[in-house]
């Protein structure tokens, strides 16, 4: 199977990443919580979540982070490498929500032998901004 390779030279600052949407089912919330070893009940127990002030169970922070790295390397292909990332969580992403993932290249530069891009991303749910932040990725360069 061939995989996409996105070269640093072929990116321009201001470029938008393809939008990705995903229906976050109850099963998806629970599967991701358990895959990330997070058994805190707000991520699988509706009654517990509601007592904690939430309207439904919601995804955990590792899942939000997992969606960020998945979204970024879906864009770059497997040769793109996540160097650093930072995000703020806003409203929870509840079971039943549609999560819309968007991003934009905001800077392109070279540091030492690394060809880098900075990306701003914003993940939206019907209730507002779920997760927004920045990431730096190392991309392959032609001829290097």
């Amino acid at each position, binding site marked *: 199977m061939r995989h996409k390779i996105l070269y640093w030279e072929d990116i321009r600052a201001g470029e938008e990443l393809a939008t990705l949407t995903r229906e976050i089912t109850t099963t998806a919330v629970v*599967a991701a919580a358990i895959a*990330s*070893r997070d058994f805190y009940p707000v991520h699988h127990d509706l009654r517990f979540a509601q007592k904690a002030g939430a309207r439904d169970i919601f995804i*955990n922070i590792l899942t939000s982070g997992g969606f960020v790295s*998945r979204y970024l390397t879906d864009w770059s292909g*497997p040769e793109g490498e*996540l160097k*650093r*990332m930072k995000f703020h969580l806003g409203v929870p992403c509840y079971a039943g929500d549609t999560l819309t993932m968007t991003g934009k290249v905001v800077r392109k530069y070279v540091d030492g032998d690394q060809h880098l891009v900075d990306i701003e991303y914003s993940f939206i749910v019907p209730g507002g901004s779920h997760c927004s932040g920045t990431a730096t990725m190392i991309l392959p360069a032609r001829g290097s």
Partner: protein
Amino acid sequence: MSIGIYEELKAMVGQGQPEQVAVDEVCKHMIRHWCEAMEDANPLYTDEEYARKSKYGSIIAPPTMVQAWVIPPLWPVREMPAVYRRIFEICAKAGFDQIIDTDCEMEFFCPLFPGDREHVVTKVGEVTAEKKTSLGNGHFITLESTYTNQRGELVCVQRVIILMYKAKGKG
């Protein structure tokens, strides 16, 4: 008001906890379960042949999975790391018994490979005074974690901000 607990929380800044070691080695099965849940098709994580020919020479764990390896098991019950236990004790006695993560920052240095065993050291960074939030009033606490592999090589530095809060409508 909870001036008392703010002082107690502030006294924890800079305090760390003994190194925690992952129960499980990094393994292909747990990586695959993660990819299944995230719907992450990156072949470095699950395609042996692709990964072998890559610069890593092997499957690697998804970088953002770093925290999953060191979460304590449900059973047999392990004592909660001292720093967390103390934060929960201080906050719970003032009614701030709910926890939620609000911010996360990670820098990655080297990947984890199947067979690696992750270690982590966590310390308390900053603590805020009581703040009003949409979930209820609470304190924001920054936890700084340094993840290494079994050879002591730096894997990831992470800063997470948690909110310890009192659910709205509770007395």
